């Protein structure tokens, strides 16, 4: 043998080192670690096995490093705590000793063993051996991998020009990145531009917002695209290609906003900005401080239809000749590295609650209409006028939680700003018209923020009357147009009937209607309430699950201005980190395509939650976009031809674990597949909480439950397993957007198959477990115990027969 051949043979010889950790007494207290290490040394490819007191300590790490060098180890297995805790630590140890980090494997004998089987040392030790065996068999098949790098374009797109989008754009632009700010309305500003004063400081809203708006307009690093819509988004983190439709304003930037045109325009309509309380012309600017200040022509309203110029009044009135009916819609293509979604929130339409009479009784208004009425620049010049008779009301009632905290309206969540907004409004009324009698009907007053309680106290001191219990009904006096509020005071358990001159419904916030579109274009997830869902509620609160995309403001959940701005700066910083680095590494968990096996059926394309696979039907090809792939493995589980090899979670590796777990006493065991993010973490949490459950379960970790191919389940049964458990994140909470719907579909298919073959389908269980539901996981294992115990040898044999084919893989 030449020297070269020897080194090659050696390189191919698999040399595994196994380290069984005592974790002080955390593991050693209920598992005989020395016995487990002893057992490990008898396993194939294992060249050394040690038990260490604290493997993660510096000394422990040193021992591993030395062994790797001295014993030429090319795989390392540590049996200790959860990989969710220390996998990164030990991977680093391997790398420092010159071993590729993908050649490291962990057996979780603490959270999944010693802690959940505190009182049966023998059974716990046996289980630990099994877990180590599974890890060793998998380790033997691990392959080194290089993580690929994706460049990040140092330009950002901000969608939505409310206060959140404005702040995010300014922060990024000030850092030095070029930003495109896309706003669908003719002006930026969002809701904050509509409101009069802001709680808790009672600042004038537009006064503090307008300077920021004009900064956006003038910033050399910001390209402002107003009156524009996102048409399409392609690409992935670092390299998004975005198509934007810039609608024609029919007024060029020569416009000086003198307003002469609007004076002569014969056409009028309600101004949306004023919630329809004031009129605008066909040529208009939504409000005086609009940015850009350039006027816009509403062609739906304008007398000039496509191709025919009937009216030239504005054209004639405009000295600057800024009006141009020839303008066409423009499609603009942007290339950006990061995207911040700041599309804000709509307000609830209370006319769906008929008892409150909104839309029928003129003097019932919403809190948003109130903002326009109390605003000195608004339609009534700052006077709170009753729409019925243009008189200032002597008594006013606020009704809280309209479209919030109610299952009936489909809005069970709290809208966060309405309580404080009402208190602010009440104080504003008191300021202008101190004699006004004000009632606030509420469920709870939530004055949780800085300075909020003070404001609440002030309102009470000024004589605002707070009554607990929302009115059941509002009835109008036909003559005076006054309103009767009828309901129960739940503190005094007394009925009330109160007459007021005006009712203000404190309406909740709800997702913008554009949320659907943006969700689809950017492949985002949403929470139950319909707002966008963050990657992690505590630790990644502004990141989307999809790489390179961030949230700011009310798009993510209802919040006040301060929180919107805080979040916007956070989102800008997060996007900035990516762009400053200039690249991201993609974990080597992406699929490898085997062209010879692929039939170009396109099934993988359909199940990928990230649109990371493209099908070229003609050339019988697929293309995997690594940067977009999140590594869930759903495609690998779907491909009927084995044409996709999931790196680090290959079929062979998973099957090796199944086989190792079913080698002895398979008929007494549950093979469980748990997804990394929820159910595996849930099982970890059961351990942390020391929740005890039967020892017979063997957990195999996949990144997503979507990776669990039916053949894995079949293989477990074919190897004689008593039961199989598939578990993942709750539907709608999947870490990979919606991949677990594939899991559900596949398990349902397997149930049908089992039923048809005369097998007890109870032997296959499916459960959704969140990372916090340790008890739910444990309960499921307990619940499965009688199923395992009652399985007869005949049933085991029958399943082996039915799924025999699964052994061929």
């Amino acid at each position, binding site marked *: 043998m030449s020297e070269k051949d020897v080194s090659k043979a050696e390189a191919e010889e698999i040399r595994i080192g196994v380290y069984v950790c005592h974790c002080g007494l955390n593991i050693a207290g209920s598992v005989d670690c020395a016995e487990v290490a002893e057992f490990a040394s008898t396993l194939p490819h294992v060249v050394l096995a040690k038990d260490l007191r604290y493997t993660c300590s510096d000394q422990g790490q040193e021992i591993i490093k030395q062994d790797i060098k001295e014993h030429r180890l090319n795989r390392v297995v540590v049996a200790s705590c959860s990989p969710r805790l220390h996998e990164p630590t030990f991977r680093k140890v391997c790398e420092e000793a010159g071993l590729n980090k993908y050649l490291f494997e962990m057996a979780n004998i603490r959270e999944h063993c010693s802690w959940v089987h505190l009182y049966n040392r023998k059974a716990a030790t046996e289980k630990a051996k099994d877990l180590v065996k599974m890890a060793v068999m998998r380790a033997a098949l691990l392959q080194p991998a290089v993580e690929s790098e994706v460049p990040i374009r140092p330009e950002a797109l901000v969608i939505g020009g409310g206060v959140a989008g404005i702040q995010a754009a300014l922060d990024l632009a000030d850092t030095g990145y070029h930003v495109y700010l896309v706003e669908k309305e003719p002006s930026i500003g969002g809701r904050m531009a509509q409101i009069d004063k802001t709680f808790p400081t009672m600042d004038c809203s537009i006064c503090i917002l307008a300077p920021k708006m004009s900064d956006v307009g003038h910033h050399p690093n910001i390209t402002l695209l107003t009156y524009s819509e996102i048409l399409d988004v392609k690409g992935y983190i670092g390299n998004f290609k975005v198509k934007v439709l810039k609608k024609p304003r029919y007024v060029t930037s020569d416009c000086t906003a003198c307003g002469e045109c609007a004076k002569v325009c*014969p056409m*009028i309509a*309600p101004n*949306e900005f004023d919630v*329809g309380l004031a*009129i605008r012309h066909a040529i208009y600017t939504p409000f005086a401080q609009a940015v850009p200040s350039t006027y816009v022509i509403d062609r739906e309203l304008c007398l000039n239809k496509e191709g025919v110029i*009937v009216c030239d009044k504005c054209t004639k009135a405009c000295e600057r000749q800024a009006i141009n009916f020839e303008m066409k819609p423009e499609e603009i293509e942007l290339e950006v590295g990061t995207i911040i979604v700041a599309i804000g929130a709509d307000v609830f*339409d209370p006319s769906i609650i008929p008892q409150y009479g909104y839309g029928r009784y003129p003097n019932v208004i919403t809190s948003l209409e109130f903002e326009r009425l109390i605003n000195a620049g608004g339609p009534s010049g700052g006077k709170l*006028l009753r729409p019925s008779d243009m008189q200032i009301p002597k008594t006013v009632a606020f009704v809280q939680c309209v479209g919030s905290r109610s299952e009936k309206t489909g809005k069970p969540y709290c809208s966060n700003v309405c309580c404080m907004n009402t208190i602010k409004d009440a104080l504003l009324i008191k300021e202008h018209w101190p004699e006004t009698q004000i009632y606030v009907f509420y469920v709870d007053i939530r004055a949780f923020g800085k300075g909020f309680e003070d404001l609440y106290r002030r309102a009470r001191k000024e004589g605002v009357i707070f009554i607990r219990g929302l009115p059941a009904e509002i009835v109008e006096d036909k003559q005076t147009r006054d309103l009767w509020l009828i309901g129960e005071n739940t503190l005094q358990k007394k009925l009330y009937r109160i007459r007021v001159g005006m009712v203000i419904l404190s309406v909740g916030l709800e997702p913008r209607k554009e949320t659907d579109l943006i969700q689809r274009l950017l492949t985002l997830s949403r929470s139950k309430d319909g707002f966008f869902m963050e990657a992690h509620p505590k630790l990644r609160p502004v990141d989307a699950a999809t790489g390179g995309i961030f949230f700011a403001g009310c798009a993510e959940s209802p919040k006040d201005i301060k929180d919107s701005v805080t979040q916007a700066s956070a989102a800008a910083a997060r996007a900035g980190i990516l762009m400053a680095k200039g690249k991201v590494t993609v974990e080597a968990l992406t699929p490898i395509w085997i062209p010879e096996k692929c039939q170009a059926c396109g099934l993988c394309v359909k199940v990928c939650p990230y649109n990371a696979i493209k099908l070229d039907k003609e050339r019988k090809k697929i293309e995997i976009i690594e940067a977009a792939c999140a590594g869930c493995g759903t495609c690998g589980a779907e491909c009927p031809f084995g044409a996709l090899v999931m790196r680090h979670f290959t079929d062979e590796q998973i099957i090796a674990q199944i086989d190792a777990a079913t080698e002895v006493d398979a008929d007494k065991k549950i093979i469980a597949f748990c997804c990394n993010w929820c159910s595996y973490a849930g099982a970890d949490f059961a351990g942390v909480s020391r929740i005890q459950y039967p020892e017979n379960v063997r957990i195999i970790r996949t990144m997503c439950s979507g990776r669990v191919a039916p053949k894995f389940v079949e293989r477990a049964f074919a190897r004689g397993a008593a039961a199989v458990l598939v578990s993942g994140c709750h539907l709608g909470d999947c870490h990979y957007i919606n991949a677990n719907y594939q899991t559900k579909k596949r398990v349902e298919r397997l149930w049908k198959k089992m039923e048809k073959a005369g097998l007890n389908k109870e032997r296959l269980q499916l459960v959704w477990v969140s990372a916090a539901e340790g008890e739910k996981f444990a309960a499921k294992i307990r619940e499965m115990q009688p199923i395992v115990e009652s399985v007869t040898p005949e049933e085991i044999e029958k399943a082996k027969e039915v799924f025999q084919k699964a052994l061929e893989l």
Partner: protein
Amino acid sequence: MPVRIWRKPLDAEKAKPPCGEIHILKDLCKGCGYCIEFCPRDVLEKSEEINKRGVHPPRVADESRCVVCSFCTAVCPDFAIFVIEKPCEGGR
């Protein structure tokens, strides 16, 4: 659901489109129908009547819709129609 616009604007009385008084010189009309076709507010329609030139001149269908853009005057090749602004009354 986005904000619903349903009220009559508070300043609707103050800012009304101008109101027009339409004068049709029936016998000058040659029946080309341009005014009817091009009126952006659909104020005019063809009448049954036959004029001196043997054609159907236009008639006013709904004067209250006229906003005095005077395009009818502009397009009429035979100067058969003109509009003057008048004080608005009643409904608008």
